[in-house]
Every structure is written in C-alpha cells, then in structure tokens.
C-alpha cells in the first residue's frame, strides 16, 4: 500500500486555518502529515488548541504528525502545554 503524506507550510498569521485545511486532507492521508513551521516565530493560544485538535484527529486516523523547522521558543511552548510528545520533529 502506497504512502500518502500531507506536506504543508504553516504561515504564522494563519496557523488555525492552515491546520483546519490540513485536517480536511487527513481523510486521504496515510502515513504522515508534515507541517513546516519554519516561518512560525510564535504561536498563540488558538493555534495551540488547533494543533492539539489536529494531532488528535490525525492520531485517530493513524497518521503521524511531523513538525519541521520548529524554533526552540515554539518547541518550549509545546513542552509546557504537554503537547510535544504527541508530535514528531524533524529539522
């Protein structure tokens, strides 16, 4: 069975809609969803909630969520919010 991945660049100004769009693509995704956070300097509470929801849905569908290019400030936010363990990280 072939692997289908979601590859998505996340724009800091529209993290929530971007994740909603990515969520819609999860239906047809197998394997992993890669979200590129390279251009995200900060995340806010709404984005954090959206990420939590997204990873919940992805996990239910057996899709692994990989965050790439996460800066250490955002990474720390994910750790403090106890969400980091639910994602995989790549450079």
């Amino acid at each position: 069975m072939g692997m289908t991945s979601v590859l998505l660049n996340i724009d800091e100004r529209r993290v929530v809609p971007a994740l909603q769009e990515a969520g819609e693509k999860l239906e047809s995704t197998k394997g992993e969803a890669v979200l590129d956070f390279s251009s995200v300097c900060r995340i806010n509470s709404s984005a954090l909630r959206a990420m939590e929801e997204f990873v919940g849905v992805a996990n239910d569908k057996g899709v692994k969520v990989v965050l790439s290019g996460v800066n250490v400030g955002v990474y720390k936010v994910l750790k403090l919010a106890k969400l980091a363990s639910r994602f995989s990280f790549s450079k």
Partner: protein
Amino acid sequence: MIAREAEQKTVQVPLAVESLSAERIAYLERLVSQAKTAAAVFTQFTQEDVDRIVKAMVLAGLERAQYLAGLAIEETKLGVMEDKVIKNMVATEFTYNYVKDKRTVGIIREFPDRNLVEVAEPIGVILSLTPITNPTSTVLFKCIMAIKTRNAVIFSPHPSSWRCCSEAVRIMGETAVKHGAPEGVFSCLESHTLQDNAYLMRHKDVGLIDVTGGQGAVKAAYSSGKPALGVGAGNTAVYLEKTADVNTAVVDIIISKTFDNGTICASEQTVVIDDEIYDLALRKFSELGAHICNEEETKVLERTVIDPQTGFMQPMAVGQKATDIARFVGLSVQPNTKLLIAPIHGVGREHPLSMEKLFPVLAVYRARCADEALKVCVDVNHAGGLGHTAVIFSRNDEIIHKFSEVMNAGRIIVNSPGSIGALGAVYNDLVPTFSFGCGTSGGNSTTDNVNVFHYLNIKRVARRTQAHMWFRVPDQIYFNMNAVENVRQFPSQSTVIVTNPALEHIGHVDIVRRHISPQTYVHVLVIPDAEPEIKVVVQGVETLHFYKADQIIALGGGSVIDAAKIMKLKYESPEADLEELAAPFLDLRKRVVQYPTEKINRARLIAIPTTSGTGSEVTPFAVLTDKERGRKVTLADYSLSPDVAIVDPQFVLTMPKGLTADTGIDCLTHALEAGVSNYASPYTDSNAMQAIRLVFKYLPIAYEHPRNEEARCMMHNAACIAALAFSNASVGVNHALAHAFGARFGVAHGRANAFMLPHVIAYNAAVPTKFMPSPYQQGYVAHKKYATVADLLGLGGHTVDEKVRKLIAATENLLDQLGFPRSIAELGISREEFERAVPEMTKIAFDDPSWRSNPRMPLMSELVELFWKAYQGRGLAKVVGASQ
C-alpha cells in the same frame, strides 16, 4: 451573608476532594488547561510585550478604581468606600511605579564582576486566593504581577467577595488580552467550595499557590505539597516612646487604624505608651475623635468583639465603623467617633483586646519604663503577630534599634502609620504589596512584601570565573658565592642568630658574624639539629624577648629556618595559637583560621640556608614536629616567609653526600609537584621547570664531587627556585605521604619523598579515579606536564605516555645514582610493622594539606596503595604497570 476573615482562621481547608462531582472536576480541569495553555504561550513574550500590557491594565484599573471599590463595599459590607478607592489606586499606580522599570523577562540582572547573570523563568499557572478584606485591590495587584512575570492565574476569591473580585479579574483579563496577552491568562472560580481549592492546590499543573487570607487557607496551601506563598495573620504592636512626636504619632495611628475600618492586617492593634506621655497621648486621641473607654466599657468590648472561646475577633465587628461597633455592643459614643480606645493591663487570652482586631478598636497599655514597654510589645508580637508588622514612634535611635532586635516582624515601621506604611511606597521605600510575608514564625516562606520577584523562578547563569592567582616571593633574594656579605646592609640593634651545633662548630656562624655591624649586639641561639619541636620554639621566643631582638638570622637547613619562622611568629604575635593555625584547610584564600596581623614586636628574618633542598628561605611554610602525636604540623601563610633570603653556596660545600642526596631529591619533589599542581601558573612553571633541569644536571655532580662549586651553586639555586615555585603552587600527594611516613618511622624528609616519587609520578599521570576540582586549570594536564618535563630533559619519546615512562625511568635512575634504598622494606621495617602503621599514616596523609593542590584527588584507598608501592619498592615495570 457576610463571611469573615475570622471564620477562615478556624477552618482548615479539607484536602479531601472526593465530594466533587465529575462535572465540577471537568470545570476545574478546563480552568487549569486554559491557564496552562496561556502560560505556555506567554513564554514567547518579550519584556516590551508585557510592559505594554501592564501599562494598559494599570490604566484600566485606575479608571475603574471607584467602580470596583463600590462593588466591594456593596458585596462585603466591610470597610470604607473612599479608602477602598485609594487601595485600588495604590494597587495599580504604586505597583506600576515599582514594576515599570523592572526587568522580568529574559536577562533580569547582570553581575559582570561575578560573571553571573540572572534569567527569568515564569512559574506557569498560579492559584491565587484573595481575601474579603482587600478584595479588588488584591486582585488588581496580583494581575499586574502575573502579567509582568508572564504567568497565568486562577483566582479563588473569598466567597463573600466573589462578585467584586470576578469583575476585577474580568476587567484585568479583557484589558490584558486586548493588548496581546494570551487568552485565558486569568480566570476566576465561579462560586467555589473549599473542595475546589483543595483540588486545585494539588493539581499537577498548578505551579504556585499564592494565598492572601486567613490562616486556614494558608495552612492548606502549605500542606498541599506545592510551592506556596502564604502570608500570615498579624497583631501589630506599637511602641509610642516618650521621645516621640506625640501629635504626629496620634494622627498616624488614627489614619492607619481607621483606614478602611482597620481591615489591613498590618494595622495597629495595641499601642504601648510610656508613662510620661500616656495622658497626653490619650488626650490627643480624644481630641481627634477617639472614644477612650472606661473600665466598664472596656469589659463590654472584651466580651463582645472577641470570641471568648477562640480568642479571635467576632465577624460582626470586622471592617465596621467605630460608631456601628459601639452601637452593636451597647456603648454610648459621640456620632463622630472614629476609634474606640480600650486601656488594657496585660496581654494574652485573659486580655482579649490584646489580640488582632481588624476593626477600629485599639488597645492601649501604660508602661512604666522602656523595659516594660518592650516586653509588652514582645508579648503582643507573640500573641498572634509573629513575623508580621510592628510599629514604633520614637526619636531615640537606640530604642528603635532595640525594638527592631526584639520584635519578630517582617516590617518594622518607624514613625509612620502601620497599615499604609507596611503596604510600602507611601511612607517609606518598602516594596508596594498587598501580601505581607511573615517568615517562618508566621508559618510563611518569606518575610518580604510579596512582589513580582516572588512570581518568578530566577535562573542563575554562572560563567566560569578566571580565578585570581598570585606569585608572592620574599622582597630580597641574594645568591651566588659570598652573597652573605649582604647581611651588613641590614641595620640592627640586636640580632639573634638561630643555628644548630654543627654549623656553629664548623665556623659558619663566624662567617655570618663577620658581616654584621660591630654596633649590633649578637646572640647565637643554638637549637638541636632536628625538626623543631614546640619546646624549642618556646625557648627561642624567650631568647628573642630577652635580647629584644629586631633581627633574626636563621642559619641552617630547613629545620632551623622553620624554627626561626615560628619563633618570629610567636615573638611578634604572642597570642598566635599554633594548634589553631595548623587547622586544615582546602583553599589557602578561604581558610577559616587567619594568621595574626597585629604585632607587638617586629623582627626582620634573614634566612641563610645551609642545605640545598627545603627552600625554606623563601617559603611561607614551616613544619613542626608533634612528638606526642607522632605527626608533623604544617603551618602555611605568607606572613611566615622570611624577609630576606641569602642563597650562598659556601655554606653547602661541606654538606655530606647523604644530606646532599636527601635534600636534592626534596628539591626535585618540590619542583615536580609544583609543576603539576592545580595551582600551577606560567609564573610557577618557569621556576619549576628550571629547577628540575638544574637538579637532573647538577645533583649527581654535587653528590659525586661535593667541592664542585658550580654544581653546589646551581643546586643551591635550584632549591631556592623550586621553592619559589611551590611557595605559590604548593606541593602534592608526594609530600602528604612523605610527611606521614617520615614522622612515623623517623625518616628524613627528602629520603621519605624519594620512596614515593616514582610512584606518585605514575599515579598523577594516570587517569584519576577522582578529579580534583580546580578552577585554576583547564582540563587534566598532569600527564602532559610530565611529558613537557621529559622534553625539557631531552629524554625522548613520541607519545605522552612514553615521555612519562621515560621521566619515571630518569627519576629512578637519578635515585640509583644517589644510592637511595629503593624500597621502604630496605630500611629494615618489617611488613607487619608497616602494615600496622598504614591505617594511621593514611589518615594523617589524608589530613595533610599538601595534597589539596595535587592534580588528582587521592582516595584513601589510593594512599594505602601508594604506601605499599613505596614499601615494595623499585622497578619501572612495576611502577608503570601499577598505574595502568
């Protein structure tokens, strides 16, 4: 319903949370979750971000100060509207003034001199309990602190001030979010129960509990196992001392005690007044609107405003006006009465009005003298007010100081109102607050006025400091043949030459005397040719006193010079306690015992060595033999260094071969140990290396050809140069072993060193079992420095290991050339005898300060091993093999 502070005093918050419904738990979890998310997001904010938000919140708080005060009065029925407005303004404006320029994000403080930087780390989620007495002002204050420090807060207001507090939280929260704060940064429990608090206090995601309120809540917070800021109850004692400005004091007390109807827990409770001004003070109180109760009225108050069962104040009185209280209890007072003053004659449960009263009833006590007044203040302090606040009105600094010593209070307010004074920033420079830490006596973790810095974890970034080092040597060193002629340049009325019998016999003393001015009285003190004992030193000091010596010439080997150093010390500073001065230390500069600096006599010490080894002529060390305990006591301090060293080889030309070898190896040991010492520096290295080179080149010649002047001269210089190195870099484990072994078996110091030396080189060159902490060195370098020595000596070898082996071999070869026995066993010491001695020698060696600078920290088991290697003795293969 009016709930009261007093109720909280007697109620322990239960930790059992089983009675919470699943729905309630879900609600509490939502609060924590949103606070946790907000706190996480908040970590990304900069100082500028939070400062901008704080300013907006402060302005919003100021704008709504009257509105919130009105809500508080309406809901709690406590206090005074106008005062609550002031409180809200203080909580915002004054707090802002304190925090506005404070750094609370990122690097908050730097200490360049100490290479230290402090970095702020938010706490995360704070659970904050707020009181009924100062409801909205406390909320405003804590909101500002939380935003300034990037924390999220869940508020749990006193149930009877929930509406006004939740409105304050709403205003602060909406303003903060509008200006960029994370959503959910503040929340307020909806109509909570004690179980809610218990649940949240134990929640894993709550980082800190900040309780401003009753003792029950404070105790519950501290009992939860969470870090907590709980602040305690007060019972503010006031001493109105006879030198005080009575007019000012009375007005200040009235301002404070009537402020918000006395609800601030720092407000005055009992005023102790000196007899001389008692009547005057009460007259002033009366003139300014206080009602002075007679004995009967006082008894009525005692029965009514304080609960006779608990000793705590009655809720009906808290925060009420004086006239209302009077009406409740049936006293007749003027309609404009501000304050009820009740004279009392003692403190404690039998005198109920001496306890805390958060309402405008003030106890007064007439004291016959300052001593009685202070004692009564202490009694009040201990009657429920430990750690909180105390007030004194006085112009007598001595009394103020005494008061501050005897009162246990985090805030001692002088010549100003207690409550507003304790709040800070109005009458004094205390940090503005609405939470008074009461210290451990008050069951709290701090005595501070709680402020933004209590809402931060402060991380200290400690960069490695460049340790200050030193290179200290005697002022003057004269060397080469006939250097002794320089003695004549030192003026003296009375000189004592300390020497030993042999040197006097062979004419060395006469050589020295020839160079002393004929006007100088000279006495020769001959001491035994052995390492000095206490009694020798004592006799020497008596001689120095007898001849009123202003100059001591030590002519001899290390023992004579060491004896002279200690004689000088005791002569100049008779109080010096040698036993204490020999106390062990880890770092010379941090030692507990300091050598005396006050001197009642002064004498110049000129050291003229007659052996080429100890280097005592330039060192700050002196070794005493403690025969009773079979050990050597090492004294070390730069004040022991001779003033002048004269290194004249004419005094060593007749040195016997054995002594030449022993002292020469002592010199080599000094240089090698200084070379690898943790205190080694480029300054000491240059001396150590040069000394090693000279020893390897000239010691065999001096040994074989004692009259070879060049060899003698170079060895004499080598000893002094090595001593310059180890005076500043110290020695190492070789000396610790040799001291212990030499003292136990009566073996000369140099010879004792020789038994250990090859083994110690191998030991230090191996990877340590335990590294010695050393801020002076970069990495472990002992093996490399031995390799450098090998290179200097031209021993060959390609790798560090190879070079170390060659150095060990060269050392062994040198010992062979000098005819040393190469094992302790060869001295005729039986294995059994040695085995019996090893445990005690090990303890003594471990106590010896010599090894503190050794590059490798010796374990006791390793000292034992080294002793046995020395016992078993020779063989490069054995030595090197053992080190691997």
